[in-house]
């Protein structure tokens, strides 16, 4: 099969091939290759570890959800928009909390967009035009292995035809694999991205800085960077978790956006996050059009409210502000801070996922799902928002996320008197 769409990372490569007979991929990176390979599955729906039918598991799940005062519905980044949409409506009807993986990934980027916007562009713009690319706190070589060749480093485009015509800079606190790929690596002190962006804004405007160094980098070095940025014809900052998960979080990005706003007064620059999961963008876009917000949404009053400080998954758990959880296509037990997991362990958890993981170990109801992109189709948004239809390439007995959630929604509407 040609033109298969990879459902691992936010690069969503749509030029890969998959041999359904041998269950093996071609042209994939190491991450995609592992995604498109046979591995252990959850064998059947389970309640308290005992195998049951889909219908029984869904009934048990619905029981938990309608009896809870405020369920948390979390995950979503590794499934398709069609399933996410049902999930948002389900949360709305249940008066629960909808949150998705961004809240431990690029959620701060949403907060910065609220403050300052997001001057951006698609990855094709980077490929075709960017003569300066700055990876800031991002490490594509390990997180998005084909990103550099397809879009951002060696990619050949309409105006920038060659790697030699593009300057690649990595800014990070450690010398990552991506740093070795760059023309220049600028090592900074952890926690000082914000101050460095402030310094670059000063330097771009031609203001003098009294200090000799900022965030572990000499001001003369920063002045050089500012000059490179001003002299670019079309530049791009592609940022990663290095600035969203460290000191400053959203404020780092906000300050970076202000730098980009300023640079656009001299030349053209864009900034864009290096989103992780293949459809984490959809997990934010779908609720945005359905209910107005991207993540951390509480429906307990019958209408959506947005507040990451309270309703992001970590906060909802730390504040004990949910008394049941439905986890879809995610593994919060493996990816949340220990203390947040403690509360999750104390409430009834329902899991929908193709693969057993750490959350399976604490779940009361486990519902196995078809693997999206292999056994189920649907729409996903690449990290830059480009929509792509992921494909079903093999048949499976497993139900899709969309079908499972739709069955849940139907029952919830009946139980809550909405139908």
């Amino acid at each position: 099969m040609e033109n298969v769409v990879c459902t691992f990372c936010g690069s969503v490569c749509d030029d890969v091939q998959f041999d359904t007979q041998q269950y093996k991929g071609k042209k994939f990176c190491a991450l995609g290759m592992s995604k498109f390979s046979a591995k252990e599955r959850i064998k059947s729906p389970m309640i308290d570890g005992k195998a049951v039918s889909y219908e029984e598991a869904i009934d048990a799940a619905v029981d938990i959800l309608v009896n809870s005062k405020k369920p948390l519905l979390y995950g979503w980044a590794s499934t398709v928009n069609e399933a996410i949409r049902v999930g948002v409506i389900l949360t709305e009807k249940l008066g629960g909390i909808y949150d998705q993986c961004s809240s431990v990934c690029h959620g701060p980027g949403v907060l910065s967009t609220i403050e300052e916007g997001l001057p951006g562009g698609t990855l094709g713009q980077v490929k075709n035009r960017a003569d300066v690319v700055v990876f800031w706190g991002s490490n594509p070589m390990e997180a998005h292995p084909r990103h550099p060749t397809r879009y951002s480093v060696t990619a050949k485009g309409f105006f920038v035809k060659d790697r030699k015509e593009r300057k690649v800079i990595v800014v990070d606190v450690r010398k990552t694999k991506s740093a070795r790929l760059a023309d220049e690596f600028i090592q900074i002190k952890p926690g000082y991205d914000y101050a460095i962006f402030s310094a670059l804004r000063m330097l771009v405007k031609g203001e003098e800085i009294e200090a000799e160094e900022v965030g572990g980098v000499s001001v003369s070095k920063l002045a050089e960077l500012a000059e490179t940025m001003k002299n670019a014809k079309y530049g791009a900052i592609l940022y990663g978790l290095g600035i969203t998960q460290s000191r400053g979080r959203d404020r780092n990005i906000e300050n970076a956006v202000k730098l980009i706003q300023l640079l656009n007064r001299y030349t053209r620059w864009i900034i864009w996050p290096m989103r992780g999961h293949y459809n984490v963008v959809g997990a934010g876009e779908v609720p945005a059009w359905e209910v107005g917000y991207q993540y951390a949404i509480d429906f307990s009053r019958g209408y959506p409210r947005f507040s990451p400080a309270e309703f992001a998954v970590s906060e909802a758990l730390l504040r004990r502000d949910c008394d049941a959880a439905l986890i879809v296509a995610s593994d919060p037990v493996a990816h949340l801070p220990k203390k947040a997991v403690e509360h999750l362990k104390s409430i009834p958890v329902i899991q929908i996922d193709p693969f057993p993981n750490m959350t399976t170990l604490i779940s009361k109801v486990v519902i196995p799902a078809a693997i999206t992109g292999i056994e189920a189709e649907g729409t996903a948004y690449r990290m830059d928002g480009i929509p792509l239809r992921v494909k079903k390439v093999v048949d499976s007995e497993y139900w899709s996320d969309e079908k499972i959630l739709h069955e849940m929604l139907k029952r919830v509407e009946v139980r809550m008197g909405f139908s």
Partner: protein
Amino acid sequence: MMVLKPKTDFAVTVEAEITPELATMSVEEASKFKVYHGREQVSLGELFEITKEGDDKKLVLEGDFSRVKWIGARMEDGEIIVKGSIGAHCGAYMKGGRIEIEGDADDWLGAEMSGGEIVVKGNARNLVGCAYYGDMKGMSGGRILIEGNAGNYIGEKMAGGEIEIKGDAGDFIGTEMTNGVIIIHRSCGFAGGDMKGGEIRIGGEFDLLPSFKKGDEGYVGDINVGGKGVIRQI
């Protein structure tokens, strides 16, 4: 005066937008006041024991209110005494009156308040006197005193009034503030990013941004926005 005590440990957080106005009602009337416990809308009397002593506009909260949100939101006068700790959004949009918290305060204390006074004997968490998501202006008047420490994002987009913290504060103090005063007696992280006006007084150490210049009064900035804010060491 009206006294409220939680009857149980709540399953999830409770949202109770009560103000001293409640104390002017009879116990029976007050019991009927609607609050949220998760998606369930319940009456105040279901969750709290309510007693009344005299007619003054004063609310006393006894027991654990650390998971009760929006207490004193939009209040205009009267007094609230919290014997323990209080949940998020306490005194948000407050216009007048007084709130005293003997324990700790959660996030969004006095967010967008325009008048009145809040005193916290313990610590406060984040977003004290801040603007809500997407709003242009944080606290614009009144006074917040925190005798312990405070968290991050204090007085963001502050446009007036005063916040005083006797202990340490976290990161990003007075970001984008335009007016008002923030006093931190001990240390904090970054202060005054993109501030246009107002004053931040700091007793201990802090992270000075490269976009401030030393003047006679202290550090002036943020130069990136042509700001005339002042950060002064006390």
